[in-house]
């Protein structure tokens, strides 16, 4: 891929994920206890850990989104973004496999999208794109731009 196109793709993905993370975190920051309940519904972590997750995870999403949008600490922000998307994918996949009939909670309490094949496909797409973004930024900062 040409360096120019890579640069545009990186910007597009960065802004896309930046906006997505900020949007996703907003409701959760405003109503963390509601988010704690959504986390607990996944039945992966107990009540205590879900409280901590609800207290800090939305803020991590928000700050990562801001960094991606602003283009500051891109390497760290894209790595955290990729980790977040991978974790979300694992959570949704395990819930779908176990047949849990729960709301996703991905965008706070307003969203009523339940766990299912569509949600799983969406999360696979996010995880793949976040990995591409991380590789793009990593390759540019490491100076081997032509390899991807």
């Amino acid at each position: 891929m040409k360096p120019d196109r890579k640069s545009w793709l990186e910007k597009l993905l960065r802004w896309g994920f930046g906006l997505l993370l900020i949007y996703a975190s907003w409701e959760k920051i405003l109503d963390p206890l509601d988010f704690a309940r959504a986390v607990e519904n996944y039945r992966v972590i107990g009540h205590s850990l879900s409280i901590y997750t609800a207290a800090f995870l939305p803020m991590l999403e928000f700050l990562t989104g801001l960094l991606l949008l602003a283009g500051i600490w891109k390497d760290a922000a894209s790595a955290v973004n990729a980790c977040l998307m991978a974790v979300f994918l694992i959570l949704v996949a395990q819930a779908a496999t176990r047949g849990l009939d729960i709301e996703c909670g991905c965008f706070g309490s307003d969203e009523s999208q339940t766990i299912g094949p569509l949600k799983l496909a969406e999360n696979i797409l996010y995880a793949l794109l976040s990995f591409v973004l991380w590789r793009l930024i990593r390759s540019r900062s490491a100076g081997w731009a032509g390899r991807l």
Partner: protein
Amino acid sequence: MKTFRRILLLCLFTLAAGLAVNRINPRGIPWRLLVLTWTPGLKPVERISAEDAYVQMMDGMTCFMDVRDEKAFEIDHISGARHMPFLLLSRHPGSLDSLDRDRAYILYDFDAGSRIPAMALNLMKTRGFRNVSVLSDGFAGWLERGFPREFGEAL
């Protein structure tokens, strides 16, 4: 290495901002709840079965306290229960001062396994309440046995 350092700093910012925002936000998670949640293994608490609690209720000896949020309480709750959401309790423990410390209180959440009533109990004990226990089967167990419930807002 630089990236790793930045990730670490981002996590530290997240911790600081998370604590600050939850403190400012009226619907945020209060630090007391975080501290109580951190307590690895709460002290063993007094538990009471639904049957014994029902007997005490009939004798008029005890006051039920519902620690769930407003929405859950409005749907239904144990007849005569007082609404004391844990979020409010952990933010303003002083709200307990209006209660009679010599009375018996039974705290409950919906699920039997919930730690919230135990955390509320520990908070009440630190404020001088001696006769407090947790409904061991939760509100779910109460409903299963067909014991009385009522609907509507807190008085």
